[in-house]
């Protein structure tokens, strides 16, 4: 911006000198005429982009002054993205400054230690300024961009710094530093990035969010900008947003196979785990992978670049060549880490907690403009104050923040997971007929599709799981029978799948078994992303996939053994997009790519079980 001004000022002063022998009006005209209109327009565009972006930038401060960084607001209800390495020294509670001059309390929501992302939530408003998320796959090297943030923690007056630059490279891959962090498919910029910019926004020239600044190449010149900074692409952040909102500690995806760039071009499978879903779908050693998740790949780096931006558990499309034959498969991605491994590694990657400074005198910690905390839900008893959760500064966390914090092993903040479980069960219950009394009993009548259609009757209730296809009858009266149906790839797994759905509706997530909200994932490799609940009961793990708008269950998956295909019940509705889902029109049961049962529904009745004979 300054560069644009400079010529204007010089010309203006030149004009002033001329003005000694002419009129001030003539001088103005000279100045106006001398600056090309494109320059003035470009200047205005840049001013507008910065004005649009700056209010959404967040200065993150660890309570007690032990560090901090930057962040960016992405929704009016206060969700903001930052780096995991910025949020981690603060733990679950931090203080965030905006350019409006206010400091807000914020709580941790979810963390992605591998991708170095953290989702936090600023409290106290529902009308926060939020950045517009761009499509970072459309960017090219040479595009203008700018960084807003808190370098060297200079924003003590809460006015963030703006640094302008250019995209130096896109789709960059940066190897894991230490044990955990991996920057895949990231953006490289020469906009100045210094310590303290971490977690902050990288915007495009019009002020839309394209990345989360996280890392820079520092070498012999010390920890200052040398024109090489990296940002996590906003498209990667979008993939993880649903997972991060779940309040969990999330992991990245792996194919279960290694790949290598062929010296003659192309990327080939160099090793594959027989227990991986990719192997079960037919991928083998030496197959040439040509497309992953809709993007063409030519090198091993390309493949890792795409996988590194995807969350554990997603199911994506993959295309490969065997000889000249092109094959397309749907692959479930496993996690990079085992469940406990990630948490262990994370503990190792964290800096030691900073020493808590001595508590300042009463009243000193009140920042001007701080939002008043809402009324406390329960007054603290004096005796319990010593046990109250404390922030990084050793002082108690404010009540407003405590109300949105719930510790639980394996979660960053279980509060948000619980909220989503409640939201989803309410959505799911709205899509099915109301019942006067639970437990319910379902009676479904239909016809198999195919060459010889057979009538089907299904009864699902707490008391019985019974299915009649033609003249064959299946009754499952034990947990073992249900487990075996799934394990043996039997069509009878339709019964426990329906039962898992019915019972979740009846008893809700808290009483179903061990239930948590996974986040959002594609269904059969397709958008939109569906909400996913996971619950374990009777040795079977159930996954419910829920459409984000209609709230209808679209799939129920049952897993008996992780090394084998789960039973997948796909629930098809006749309703058009945007309509209420109504009664399912078709049920389909699959293992991998094999359809074992396809059923057209004729009637579906839901009764209170007590009313059944």
């Amino acid at each position, binding site marked *: 911006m300054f560069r644009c001004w400079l010529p204007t000022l010089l010309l203006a002063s030149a004009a002033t000198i001329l003005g000694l022998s002419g009129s001030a009006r003539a001088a103005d005209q000279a100045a106006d005429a001398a600056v090309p209109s494109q320059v003035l327009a470009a200047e205005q565009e840049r001013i507008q982009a910065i004005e649009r972006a700056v209010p959404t930038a967040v200065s993150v401060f660890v309570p007690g002054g032990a560090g901090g960084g930057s962040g960016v607001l992405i929704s009016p209800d206060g969700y903001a993205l930052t780096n995991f390495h910025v949020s981690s020294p603060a733990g679950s509670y931090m203080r965030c400054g905006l350019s409006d001059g206010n400091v807000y309390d914020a709580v941790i929501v979810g963390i992605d230690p591998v991708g170095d992302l953290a989702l936090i939530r600023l409290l106290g408003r529902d009308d926060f300024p939020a950045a517009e998320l761009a499509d970072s796959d459309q960017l*090219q*090297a*040479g*595009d203008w961009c700018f960084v807003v943030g808190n370098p060297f923690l200079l924003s003590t007056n809460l006015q963030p710094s703006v640094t302008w*630059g*250019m*995209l*130096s*490279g896109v*789709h*960059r891959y940066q190897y894991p530093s230490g044990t955990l962090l991996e920057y895949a498919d990231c953006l*490289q910029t*020469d906009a100045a990035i210094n310590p303290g910019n971490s977690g902050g926004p990288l915007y495009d020239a019009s002020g839309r969010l394209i990345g989360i600044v996280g890392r820079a*190449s520092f*070498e*012999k*010149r010390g920890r200052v*900008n*040398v*024109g*090489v900074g990296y940002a996590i692409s906003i498209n990667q952040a979008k993939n993880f947003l649903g997972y991060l909102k779940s309040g969990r500690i999330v992991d990245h995806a792996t194919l279960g196979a290694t790949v290598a*760039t062929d010296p003659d*071009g192309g990327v080939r499978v160099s090793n594959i785990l027989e227990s991986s879903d990719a192997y079960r779908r037919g991928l083998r050693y030496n197959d040439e992978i040509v497309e992953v998740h809709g993007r063409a790949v*030519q*090198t091993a*780096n390309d493949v890792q670049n795409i996988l590194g931006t995807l969350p554990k558990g997603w199911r994506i499309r993959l295309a490969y060549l065997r000889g000249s034959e092109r094959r397309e498969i749907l692959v479930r991605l496993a996690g990079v880490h085992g469940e406990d491994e990630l948490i262990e590694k994370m503990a190792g990657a964290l800096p030691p907690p900073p020493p808590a400074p001595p508590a300042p005198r009463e009243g000193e910690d009140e920042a001007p403009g701080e939002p008043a905390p809402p009324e406390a839900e329960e007054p603290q008893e004096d005796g319990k104050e010593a046990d109250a959760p404390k922030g990084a500064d050793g002082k108690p966390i404010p009540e407003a923040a405590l109300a949105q914090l719930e510790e639980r092993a394996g979660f960053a903040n279980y509060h948000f997971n619980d909220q989503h479980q409640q939201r989803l069960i309410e959505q799911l219950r709205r899509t099915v007929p109301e019942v006067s009394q639970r437990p319910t009993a379902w009676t479904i009548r239909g016809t198999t599709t195919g060459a010889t259609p057979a009538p089907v009757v299904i009864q699902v209730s707490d008391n019985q799981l019974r299915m009649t296809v033609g003249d064959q009858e299946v009754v499952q009266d034990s947990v073992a029978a249900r487990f075996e149906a799934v394990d043996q790839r039997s069509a009878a797994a339709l019964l426990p799948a329906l039962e898992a759905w019915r019972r979740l509706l009846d008893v809700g997530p808290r009483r179903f078994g061990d239930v948590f909200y996974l986040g959002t994932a594609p269904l059969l490799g397709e958008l939109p992303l569906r909400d996913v609940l996971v619950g374990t009961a009777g040795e079977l793990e159930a996954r419910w996939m829920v459409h984000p708008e209609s709230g209808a269950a679209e799939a129920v998956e049952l897993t008996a053994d992780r090394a084998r295909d789960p039973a997948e019940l796909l629930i098809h509705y006749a309703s058009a997009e945007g309509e209420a889902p109504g009664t399912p029109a078709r049920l389909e049961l699959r293992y991998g790519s094999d359809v074992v049962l396809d059923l057209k529904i004729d009637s579906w009745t839901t009764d209170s079980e007590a009313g059944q004979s």
Partner: protein
Amino acid sequence: MANRKWNRRVLPHPSLLTLAAWLLVLSGGFLLDSPTAAAQPPSRATVVREVQARVVKIYGAGGMAGLEAYQSGCIVSPQGHIATVWSYVLDVDPIVVLDDGRRFEAEIVGFEPSLELAVLKIDADSLPYFPVGERSGAAGGSGDAGSGAVPGAQVLAVSNLFSIAAGNEPASVMHGYIASEANLEARRGTFRTAYSGPVYVLDLVANNPGAAGGALVGLDGNLLGMLGKELRDERTGVWLNYAIPAGTLRGVIGDIVAGRTPSVAESTAEPLPANQAHSASGLGIVMIPNVLEKTPPFIDAVEENSPAAAAGLQPDDLILLAAGQRIEGQSALNELLRTKDRRDPVSVTVQRGSQVVTVTLRPR
């Protein structure tokens, strides 16, 4: 006109033709008066992409003691001539990786110690290139490859700094301005470099590890200079960001590409009988003990009243070139001298501290 030929041959894409046409408009001074240029200037992303395709990754010696084993280079002929900075990376035959991921073993065919310039050659053709050497000897200054490189000019620096790009990944692009044009000579002794000519001082952190040999271009993609190696002021600790102007390099690059300068690569001449050929001792040079496969050709002592003494060679001089050929090690020097008739004078280029000195040894 060489430039037109280039347009037809290696720029098949219509938008590239537009770019080339635009470059012609800019470079031909007579056309500048005509505002009726039909074509719109290409987008910045297009220019960047075209420049990236002309910048290569070079891998060679290093990888220890804080010495990076990589640098950058600029393609300067369609037949695979690559201009880069002379450095320890070239102590072994380097590997060149093109923007499209193709990988080549390269030969060092040109070496100009006073410019710290090396020219490599790979076995390829129809490559996109910077026509920096093509105007050598042309009359008139307009349309210089370095034209437009005035202080305040907006520039892009394209290089594989920090070896961020690998395989077919494009080089990194940075932006900034030329801050000034100045002689490095004024700072001799402060910066440890053999080059003492003019440089463009840049306001961007262009000269990072691995950036040496990268391209400095204008917003139109025209080559303005080549990024130099990292230089740090020994007293203040300040790092210099600079590029060597294309105009300074043009003549040497042009002569090498056109074959007017013989290759510095090892010659295949037959050795002469020992009593008819030159030798180090015969010239009055005592080399350091030859204990390695490639012992650096340092002079240990100079005999009095010898051709070497008469030419002013000194102990600790490092021999870079002899009889126009690059000297990789002491054995290479001995082998080369065996091919030269002892009655003929021999030119020798040595590095003395940060100076490069060329002398002629005249047999008595």
